[in-house]
Every structure is written in structure tokens, then in C-alpha cells.
């Protein structure tokens, strides 16, 4: 009796259905007798199923479409519950009058599937449980969940089918919305600039976004199911994840936290944990950020701050030293001469008029000495010449003065300075660099000669001070660059320039300072990077 239950091909299904449809005689539209509802009438045949009018009311209350069709009788005996009209816009009569309307209204993409499944129901007697999209009268697409069964006669022939169709459009659109929202969340998850991990309290990685590949060198699929210790070796996540109850709890390590790449290299990271409850299971979201760049910047800032601190300390030292020197000069030198002058004049006032000449001559000598001392003191502090005549005359004066004081001969060469004025801060910086560099030569180089070259090229004023003296190892001064070097470096960098020192023991020192003489010098970022 049972047919072999083998799947039915699409072509076969369609031909079967066409034959089936032909078996139902079409009711002509001119028919005056509307088709009666099969279940409302008791039939002559006592074996026919009967549906009492009582149940019809019940059926028509169900928020679904109930349908029934005889396979051994004409179309007039079919039934479809009236809810069909509210859902699809076709009346009960329209459905029953046209036995192929079902097929016509099925969404084109679902037709083939329906053909196969319906044929399986009719021929093999397999219950149908499926979903289809059906086009309503106004063109809307309605999703139906259908369940149908075939009932056979006592002799085994197919008798009728009956079933229920539920409108599941709302469910379907909710599903769509859910899918969209899932896609959006997935997009967020994948596009986050940090590595985002979902891990269990045992440290097993349940999910990880694609950033992990860029950051750690593993693909996401390599890591799912693995322990978090593969990425963050210290095991800190594991111990702290159990206590994580607040979102965005930063992980605190015993020292710096490091991530370990697939190739074994390490890099500094920041990790934040948030609790995540999915249904019954409680997980942890870990956000891992690569902070290499931040660390480098912090290092540079710390270095810069340290240099600034050293410089300001040096500045205060220099200021004190300068004050002490001036005080000393005023007291010991100028003060002494003034005292001598006063005594000379007092003695002179008590002498007879004829002898005053000698006293006055002594006094004049003392006054001249005073004038010279005051003038030198003033020039040493800041040569007014720099403001009055600019860099070249001041350098010429300074070098002459320097040689007279130190016996170090200076070979001074320049170009582009004659009758040339620069911004006051440039002239000051250039003068101080030469002054400081020559002071260093006299103090440390142990030479009798030095060369100073100053030249301009485009927007740059270059100063080179060279000696063939003892030199020094740059490393040995790098750590304590407090002498004049730090001051020179600061003077040049604030003007958007740079200072290079080339020296080694036994082969002299060559200092090159480049200052920007353009009105707009380097930006602050450029200045930072110069260090």
C-alpha cells in the first residue's frame, strides 16, 4: 500500500500537479449555484467526513487559514476558511472557484519548492510542513507556515487533504530585523580598532574579531577554543576576569602588560574587561589595545621633560653664578677703585692748592679705570652692539676680545652677513652659540687656534665652530649635557633649527648649529621630533 518513499524530482512534480489540476473541473463563472461548503452538508455517502456547523464557527475563529480539498471529488467540495480574505484580499469564493490560484499566487522563488513538496504529499502521503511566500491581491508578500496531511480511503486511495496555514509575516520581519541587527553588531565588532575577545571564565576564547590578525598575527579561527594565555602570557586576564563585575574594568598587571604575537615578539598593551551575560552563561569581553605608539610618545615626552628640567636647573645655576660674578666685580673691583678714589680726593682736599695737581691726576687715572671696568661689565652682560649693528660687528668684536683674553687665535670666515640683519632672537642665539662654543674651546680643547664659520644659505643661518683639540666622547656628555651644550641646543631648537656635534677623543670637535631665519620657522611638532 505504501508507496516507496523516494524523493520526487522537480519536473516529475510539476507534471503530476498539472494532471492533478486537470482532474478538478473548473466551475464556470456563470454558474448560478455558488459552491456549497463541503462541511456544512451531510452527504449521502456515510463514509464522508462531516463537519458540524458547530465546528465551522470554531474553525472560523482560529487566527489561521484552515483548508480542505477532496482528491476524489470536484472542486465544489473544497473548503477554505474565510480568514483568507483578510490576509490575502481574495474572497473564499475566489479561492474555491479557481483551483490553480494557490499555485499562481505562490511567490515565483518558492514555486518549485512548493511543487516538489505538494507532490510528495499527494503521491507519497508525506505530511507537508513548510513555509511559502504568497502574493496578496495588492501585491504584498505574505509569509505562510503551512501544515497539511493527506487522508486515504479505507481502500487506500487518496481521499482528501486538509491543513492549516499561519500568517508568519510578522515573525519573518522580526527575524529580518534580528538578522540586520546581528549584522550591524558584527560590523561594529569587526571594525573596532582594538582586538575584542569574548572569553569564558576559564580563559577559553569563544569569539574574537579580525583585528587580532593584524595585532597578534593569528587568524580568528586559529584562536577560537584556545586559551587567552596564548595572547596575554601573564595569566592576568584569567585571575581578574572572575572579579569583573563593572564594565570597562582596566586590567592591572604587576608591571607593564605585554601581548605576545604568533612570532613570539612582545608589545605593550592596555586591556579592559567587561562582564557579558549570554543566557545562562557568564562570559567576559576583553578589549586589547596596542599602545606601542603611546609608549614611544610617552618616552619622548619624559625625555623632553627631563631635558627641560635639567635646563631650567642649569638656567638657575647660571643665573646665580652670573649674579655672584657681577656682585664680586662690583664689590672687589669697582668698589675698591671707588674707595681709592674717595680717599685720594679726601687727601687732596687737605693739601695746599699748589700740590693738588698730583692728586687730581691720580684721581683721573682711577676714574678712567672705573669707566673701563663698567664698560667691560656691560659688554659682557650683553653687547649693545648686537642690537645696534647686528651679528657681524658683534662677532668681530667678540672674537677680538676673546683672543685678547684667552690667547686662542680665531680664524673667522663668513658669508652673507655683511649689512645683513636677522630677527633679534636669531642674532642673539647665533651670538650666544659662538660665544658658548668658543668658551668651551678655551676651557676644554687645549688648542691655540679655532675656526669659526658663519654663513647663510636660503633660509638657514649656519654656524660652525671647529677646533683640532682634545675632543670628547659624545656618549660621555650625552647623559649630563648640562654644560653650555644644553643651552646651545635649546637656543637652536626653539628657533626651529638643530645643533650637531661631531667629536671624538683626539680628533677635535666640530659644532654645527643651523638656525632658521625665515619668519615662520618649524612647527612645534617638528621641534619635538628634532630631539
Amino acid at each position: 500500500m505504501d508507496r516507496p518513499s523516494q524523493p520526487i524530482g522537480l519536473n516529475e512534480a510539476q507534471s503530476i500537479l498539472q494532471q492533478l489540476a486537470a482532474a478538478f473541473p473548473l466551475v464556470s463563472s456563470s454558474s448560478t449555484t455558488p459552491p456549497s461548503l463541503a462541511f456544512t452538508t451531510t452527504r449521502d455517502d456515510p463514509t464522508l467526513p462531516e463537519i458540524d456547523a458547530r465546528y465551522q464557527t470554531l474553525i472560523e475563529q482560529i487566527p489561521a487559514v484552515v483548508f480542505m480539498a477532496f482528491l476524489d471529488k470536484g472542486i465544489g467540495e473544497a473548503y477554505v476558511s474565510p480568514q483568507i480574505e483578510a490576509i490575502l484580499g481574495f474572497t473564499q469564493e475566489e479561492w474555491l472557484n479557481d483551483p490553480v490560484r494557490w499555485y499562481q499566487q505562490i511567490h515565483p522563488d518558492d514555486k518549485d519548492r512548493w511543487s516538489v513538496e505538494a507532490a510528495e504529499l499527494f503521491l507519497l502521503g508525506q505530511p507537508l510542513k513548510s513555509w511559502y511566500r504568497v502574493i496578496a491581491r495588492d501585491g504584498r508578500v505574505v509569509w505562510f507556515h503551512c501544515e497539511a496531511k493527506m487522508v486515504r480511503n479505507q481502500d487506500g486511495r487518496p481521499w482528501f487533504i486538509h491543513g492549516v496555514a499561519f500568517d508568519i509575516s510578522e515573525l519573518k520581519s522580526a527575524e529580518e530585523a534580528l538578522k540586520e541587527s546581528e549584522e550591524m553588531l558584527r560590523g561594529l565588532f569587526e571594525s573596532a580598532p582594538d582586538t575584542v575577545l569574548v572569553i569564558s571564565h576559564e580563559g577559553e576564547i569563544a569569539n574574537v574579531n579580525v583585528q587580532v590578525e593584524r595585532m597578534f598575527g593569528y587568524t580568528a579561527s586559529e584562536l577560537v577554543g584556545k586559551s587567552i594565555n596564548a595572547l596575554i602570557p601573564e595569566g592576568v586576564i584569567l585571575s581578574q576576569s572572575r572579579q569583573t563585575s563593572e564594565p570597562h574594568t582596566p586590567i592591572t598587571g604587576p608591571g607593564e602588560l605585554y601581548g605576545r604575537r604568533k612570532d613570539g615578539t612582545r608589545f605593550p598593551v592596555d586591556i579592559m574587561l567587561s562582564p557579558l551575560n549570554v543566557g545562562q552563561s557568564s562570559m567576559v569581553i576583553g578589549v586589547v589595545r596596542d599602545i606601542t605608539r603611546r609608549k614611544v610618545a610617552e618616552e619622548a615626552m619624559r625625555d623632553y621633560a627631563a631635558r627641560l628640567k635639567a635646563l631650567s636647573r642649569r638656567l638657575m645655576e647660571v643665573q646665580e653664578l652670573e649674579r655672584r660674578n657681577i656682585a664680586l666685580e662690583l664689590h672687589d673691583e669697582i668698589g675698591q677703585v671707588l674707595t681709592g678714589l674717595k680717599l685720594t680726593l679726601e687727601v687732596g682736599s687737605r693739601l695746599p692748592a699748589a700740590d693738588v695737581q698730583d692728586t687730581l691726576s691720580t684721581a683721573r687715572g682711577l676714574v678712567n679705570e672705573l669707566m673701563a671696568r663698567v664698560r667691560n661689565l656691560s659688554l659682557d652682560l650683553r653687547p649693545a652692539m648686537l642690537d645696534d649693528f647686528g651679528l657681524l660687528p658683534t662677532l668681530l668684536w667678540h672674537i677680538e676680545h676673546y683672543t685678547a683674553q684667552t690667547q686662542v687665535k680665531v680664524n673667522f670666515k663668513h658669508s652673507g652677513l655683511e649689512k645683513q640683519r636677522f630677527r633679534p632672537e636669531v642674532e642673539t642665539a647665533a651670538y650666544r652659540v659662538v660665544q658658548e662654543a668658543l668658551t668651551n674651546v678655551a676651557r676644554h680643547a687645549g688648542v691655540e687656534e679655532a675656526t669659526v664659520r658663519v654663513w647663510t644659505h636660503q633660509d638657514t643661518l649656519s654656524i660652525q665652530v671647529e677646533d683640532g683639540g682634545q675632543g670628547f666622547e659624545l656618549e660621555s656628555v650625552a647623559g649630563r649635557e648640562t654644560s653650555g651644550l644644553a643651552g646651545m641646543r635649546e637656543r637652536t631648537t626653539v628657533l626651529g633649527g638643530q645643533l650637531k656635534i661631531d667629536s671624538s677623543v683626539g680628533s677635535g670637535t666640530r659644532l654645527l648649529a643651523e638656525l632658521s631665519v625665515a619668519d615662520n620657522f618649524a612647527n612645534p611638532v617638528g621641534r619635538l621630533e628634532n630631539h
Partner: protein
Amino acid sequence: MAQAITTIVLADDHHIVRQGLRALLESETDLRVVGEAGDGLEAVQNVEALGPRVLVLDLMMPGLNGLDVLKQLKKRSPQTHIVILSMYANEAYVLEALSNGASAYVLKDSSSADLVMAVREAAAGRRYLSPPLSDRAIEAYQEKAKAATLDRYETLTAREREVLHLAAEGRTNTEIANRLGISSRTAETHRSNLMHKLDLHTQADLIRYALRKGIIPMEG
């Protein structure tokens, strides 16, 4: 013979200095101080109003400084000869004063006889510099201050000179690097640094420069 009287205006921002100068100058019978000024602006006004033969002018004054006064008066009152009184023996100042039309330059710590001499010489239309200033010192200074004594080649480091020589022979950065035992990136840096210093832009510039300097021999 009646002596011609030389009229003088004094300009100095210190009252006590003016007093001393007046006493000093008026002790000479042929000199008479006809006015004083405490700043640059007043000096210009007084000289224009009084038309003295000589102005004794302090170089450093508030407001309008001595050099500015000098420039203005050379246009407005050319018949007045100007004697500069200065703390600074530096040639730059002397040169600047003289080239702006000063007749004499006297140091504040020179003797009173020196100032009197300077005023008399200026009044007579001659130039005067108080010792130790001299025309020779001024000339020497002008010589030193002349530009173009710097040869850009001298600003190159020893390494840059080596690279320049090799580059002028047409060697590539890699060849230069191998020869000097440095990385080719370093060779490239040296090359671009030296070209920047010498203001050369192309390989052809570099070769022309090397020929001119005799770094590589002329062909033929």
C-alpha cells in the same frame, strides 16, 4: 686779532655729564656752549633753532639715539659739525658714525684736551678720531667685515669631502658606500647634505663644481 668764537650745543642724557662738559669747554676762550639737550629729539630741535657750529653728541641716548640724531641733522642742519662722544671704542660704532656724517669720534675716557681738540678740528671742517682709534684700524675692520671670505667647501666634513670626490668621479651611492665601509643610505645622506651645503642641485652641478675646484682633472 679777534678770535672767532665757536658755538656749541651739548646733547647727553645725564645732567652731570653736560655740566662737566660745559665747564671743560667754556674754560677755553674760543668755545661757547649756547644750548643743551637731554635727549635725541631735543638735540635735533635745539640744533635747528640755534644753528651752532658744533654739536657734541652722546651716542647712547633714550628716545632718538645718537645715530638717528646724526642722520636727521645731516639733512636738516648740514652746516653743524658733529662730534660723537662714546663709551665704545669699537670700530663698528666709529664706522657707522663716520659714514653717517660725524666729523669726530671721541671716547668718553679720553682726556679733556682730546675733546677740545676734536671740537676745534670739527669746527674747522676736518676729521678727528681720538686715540687709540685710527683710520688704519677702521680700514682693517672694514677688511675683516668683508664677506665672501668663506669657501663653502670648508664647511664640509671630512666624510662629506670623501663622498664629494667619489661622487664627482661618477660613482653610485652603493659604490661609495662599499668604498667607505658605510651603508648606502648613509652615503646617500652625505651626498644630499654636501649638495645642500654647496647649493648644488644635480649631478651635472656637482661635476661642474668639482672641475672648477680642481677636484677632478679637466678632460683633454
